[in-house]
């Protein structure tokens, strides 16, 4: 039972930071950025690159976060701001093109073989009946710490209040004298850095590979939509829900339904489970589970 909970939490921490960044940026620029999951992939490769160059692991991740954050900012200023003038649909297709370029770049530079970090081998921790790897534990702790810090930023500082005001009503926030451009830049930088961190921590267990971004695309979008795009903490809750479903689907023994002692769903259907939640969410709660606004159609 505890193992089940830990598995869920580990998977949540894989998705949460990336989904959080996606949702945060959507609140300000109002288009779903398909390239966002590729920032996680780039972050993983950059961390690998720095670590292989001899930088200690934590510093390597920090450097990669800053680099990817800067890249996100540059892309926002040079590409997305220009595309947004032609509307969100065009921008979404533009982000698709950027995602393809990033994949092509990494594929050409690093090849298609997954690159494993050189980490010291350690036996997994055993607490009671629960097993968890050291890297997974660190990743989980980092995610929790960052989420706490981020919520504090969002709810107890003036910058956080400005972010919420901007994502709620841009015109009104601008009219009250908020510097929208500065805050958008800050949010873009931090969303890229968060994605890079999420990707790097995921890559510590699975290795940095080219499909890291694409594999995350639909679960991350499902999480962000479940939480309501533009609601960052909702995205974290969405990530937990997705992780819970995936873990239930893999661990549930529904042999009693078929009259067999053991019957599990094929592992390949795990990803389909999160897409199915996405579809159900879109059908019944298209603006997220935590949507309290009344909309006129």
């Amino acid at each position, binding site marked *: 039972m505890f193992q089940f909970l830990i598995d869920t939490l580990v998977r949540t921490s894989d998705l949460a930071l990336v989904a959080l960044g996606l949702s945060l940026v959507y609140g300000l620029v109002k288009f779903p950025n398909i390239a966002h999951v590729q920032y996680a992939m780039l972050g993983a490769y950059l961390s690998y690159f720095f670590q292989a160059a001899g930088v200690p692991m934590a510093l390597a991740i920090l450097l990669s976060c800053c680099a990817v954050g800067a890249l996100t900012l540059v892309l926002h200023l040079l590409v997305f701001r220009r595309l947004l003038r032609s509307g969100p649909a065009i921008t979404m297709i533009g982000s698709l093109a950027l995602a393809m370029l990033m994949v092509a770049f990494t594929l050409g530079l690093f090849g298609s073989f997954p690159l494993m970090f050189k980490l010291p081998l350690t036996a997994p921790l055993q607490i009671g009946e629960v097993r968890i790897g050291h890297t997974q534990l660190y990743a989980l702790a980092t995610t929790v710490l960052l989420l706490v810090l981020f919520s504090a930023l969002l709810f107890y500082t003036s910058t956080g209040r400005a972010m919420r005001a901007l994502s709620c009503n841009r015109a009104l926030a601008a009219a009250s004298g908020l510097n929208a451009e500065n805050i958008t830049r800050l949010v873009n930088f931090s969303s890229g850095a968060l994605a890079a961190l999420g990707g790097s921590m995921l890559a510590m267990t699975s290795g940095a590979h080219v499909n890291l971004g694409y594999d995350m695309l639909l679960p991350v979008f499902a999480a962000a939509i479940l939480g309501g795009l533009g609601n960052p903490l909702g995205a974290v809750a969405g990530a937990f829900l997705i992780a819970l479903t995936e873990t239930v689907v893999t661990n549930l023994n529904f042999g009693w339904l078929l009259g067999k002692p053991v019957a599990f769903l094929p592992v390949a259907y795990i990803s389909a489970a999160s897409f199915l939640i996405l579809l159900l969410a879109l059908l019944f709660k*298209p603006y997220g589970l935590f949507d309290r606004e009344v909309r006129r159609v």
Partner: protein
Amino acid sequence: MFDFLIFSLTIAGIYAIMALGLNLQAGYAGLLNFGHIAFAGIGAYATGILTAAGYPALVGACVGVLVAVVLGWCIARLGRQLGADYWGIATLAIAEILRTVATNEDWLTGGAQGISAIAFPLGNLPRPWGALGFLALVLALLWVLALASQRLGDGRFGRALRLMREEPKLAACMGYDLRALKSRAIMAGAATTAIAGSLYAHYMSFVGPDYMLASETFMLWTMLMIGGMGNTVGVITGVLLVQAAYCLVPFAKDSLHFGSDIAGALRIGLIGLILLLSLLWRSQGLIPEKLRKIQ
């Protein structure tokens, strides 16, 4: 070389039919369908399954078209209350679910191995003539479908779709049923694309889950965005350009001695770069759609 040229042209023709199907939805009606390749996959699988069961090729194609139209109707129903970008993500999810099902249901689709040895319709002709005949068949179908799509686009239906894309509220005020317009556009696009999928399965003598990769849909979008959405000539121009870029990659690989990873990267990167540049500097495409202005 001659064989390669025929092969490239045939594939370009098949992709052009798929792109025409997407153009009905994305170009005329402005719908963000990111799961378009699912329709082609259904056409291909229907052909594969039914011809393997011994039915004639025409039955396979017809069933594929029917199933694709039904799926199109369901997707349109799903989109009733969603914003355009949310709907785009939903279509992406549907295509991925279908691909997962196709990969795992071995009894129906042959799983990851797919279905091979689908009969090539003109396979009993001597060597260059079979491929040439198939190319002629593809081009004839493309011609018919392009004409039909042009007529549809210029006629009452196409004008209603354009009005819905540009001014949805005005269209609703004029008495158009927007939901019905959307579903009809999607169903028409689905039927066209399923035909192309069926042709592809026959030409390759194979169908597998890789036909439904999301990157295929993105490639169709690239073709549309480069050539010009909502314009039949533009769509075909875009298909030819992208296909030409794709065909150059193997030559570059051989003459510059790349590995296969770099060749793959070159292929994706080239498409991404062209798409991005055309979006930044010419978001209407090379041959833009002509819109009549109301004075």
